[in-house]
């Protein structure tokens, strides 16, 4: 047990601590507002798009099974192709998100550096 304490004392690195006013200051700062706006511009439409695209599948398959059974390529029907497309659309959105998130990282890096150097969020 004694070993355990020492271990956790040694290995626990120092982390940023702030008072309420520091956090408020960062939250209201321009760079943070920019970060949030940039995030929102990507995440909100992406989320809405994937929810609509995904739920179109059970809705169409459930309520228009005849139409979805239309054969497109040989025996493969619309229902299967639409289901299959979901995988690629999900991967595409994930890929686009990672690209957009590099931008988020850049914006938050500035905020982190300023805060950790003790200058607050300005």
């Amino acid at each position, binding site marked *: 047990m004694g070993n355990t304490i020492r271990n956790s004392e040694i*290995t626990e690195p120092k982390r940023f601590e702030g008072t309420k006013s520091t956090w408020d200051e960062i939250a209201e700062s321009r760079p943070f507002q920019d970060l949030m706006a940039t995030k929102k511009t990507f995440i909100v439409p992406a989320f809405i798009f994937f929810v609509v695209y995904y739920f179109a599948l059970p809705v169409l398959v*459930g309520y228009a099974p005849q139409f979805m059974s239309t054969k497109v390529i040989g025996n493969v029907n619309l229902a299967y192709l639409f*289901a299959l497309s*979901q995988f690629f659309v999900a991967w595409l959105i994930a890929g686009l998100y990672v690209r957009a998130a590099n931008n988020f*990282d850049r914006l*938050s890096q500035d905020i982190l550096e300023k805060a950790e150097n003790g200058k607050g969020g300005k």
Partner: protein
Amino acid sequence: MTISLEMFVLFIAITLGITYWASRRSAGAAAYFAASRQIKGWQNGIAVAGDYMSAASFLGIAGIIAFQGYDGFLYSVGWLVAYLTVLLVIAEPLRNAGKYTMADVLAYRLKPLPVRGMAALSTLTVSTFYMIAQMVGAGALVKLLLGGYVTFNQSVIGVGILMIVYVVFGGMLATTWVQIIKAILLMAGTILLSFLVMAHFHFSFSEFFGAVSQVTYHDATGASVVKDFLTPGLRYKPPYGPLDLISLGLALVFGTAGLPHILVRFYTVPDAKTARHSVVWAMVLIGSFYIMTTFLGFGAATIVGPDFIKAHGGNNMSAPLLAQALAGNVFFAFISAIAFATILAVVAGLTISATTSFSHDFWTNVIHSGKERNPGEEVLVARISAFVVGAVAIGIAIVLGPTANVAFLVGLAFAVAASANLPVIVLSIFWKRFNTAGAVTGLGIGLLASIGLILISPSIMGIDPPTVTGAARHLIQAKAIFPLENPGILSIPLGFIGAILGTLLSHEPSSQEKFNELLVRSNTGLGAEKATAQ
């Protein structure tokens, strides 16, 4: 079947070796609960996939497709798409603001005692339901796969003891590596199986889908029928089928991001960026796997045939029987061992998330108001509770027995995660006005609504003919009051409404004071928990 037995033993030996190695690196809470936050992005991605793809997906979905065709494939879609919620909304804020559990995020600006208490209750409920489903399935499956070498009870006890050993001695590090190995095995087995299915059809998709369009089998009345298995509606029939499908989709899309055993995985990586990359890795693996369920399920339907599967163990045996038909007993043994590994990796993940929540949220923070009385107590309590959780799961699985209908418990776990956990996590990160009363009512109503609706659903209520006996009978012999098997469509809105009403009807200015702190922390990673050196 001695080859199966040998492969099982080999897998057990390797994982116990890993557990021994991990046990020497699990000193300290961050090491035990979060593998020192040093897991790499790709490793965690594979582990997430290993944690997530249960026997229900490997054997279950292959079986549903083999028997009900296209409708089974709809499950496959939902299980992947759900990860977009994890990626876009949950993973990074959670990693930035939390320490070991989802309650850490809630407790930032809300009153820790009630919030952690309720969150621990919800976590334990989700994990227990999910685990009982896995254990009952494991018992029946191991017995079937080892063909007479072991009984149901011995299988359950064996799986239970292994999962206790991994978690008690190896903590998160051992659990992670068991999940990684399992995921790699599962992918390898699935790729091989898909390849052999296509080889059977001379690598011609038109030949493959041609066979799928005319599957011959005998229906319940004994008449021979030919069906196009690509046609929707073989499982989800009107009037309620389509609605049930939408309800299931809601539970998956909102529930996956609230599953405690998935959420804890994001604490094992050094930072939010790595958490993000691990979700993408997981999505690549999970998506590829679920696309290949096309070959597993339709392959079993066309090459083995529903009649043969029904006569040789049923639904869950579709994938192993397909392996046997394509490449004989050694491949059957290999696929069986993968199924076994799959079960072990998932139950180990469930156990560690349950014990982390009990020890960190309930013991340390609720009972002892946030302070460890003795150094190392949190880890000790977790180890003890892993024993208890394991023993309880073994006990319940044995009492329920092999014929118990427990498939609905997985659906219930997702419903609780979607209706109780997700609304409060999302609202606490994004809604300034949100407060303790809202979190408690949200968690409570989400939990009660999911369980209540399941109790009056066709999973529990139904009138069986006298030929159905024992545990296979519906618990309540009456017509179901709620017509859907999946409660999500009603319970998720109820969870959100509970959380919102609870907030609006109470006044707690202190919850708004720390909103900015949580907002900055969760979005920038400022002050986030860092990896610890070993």
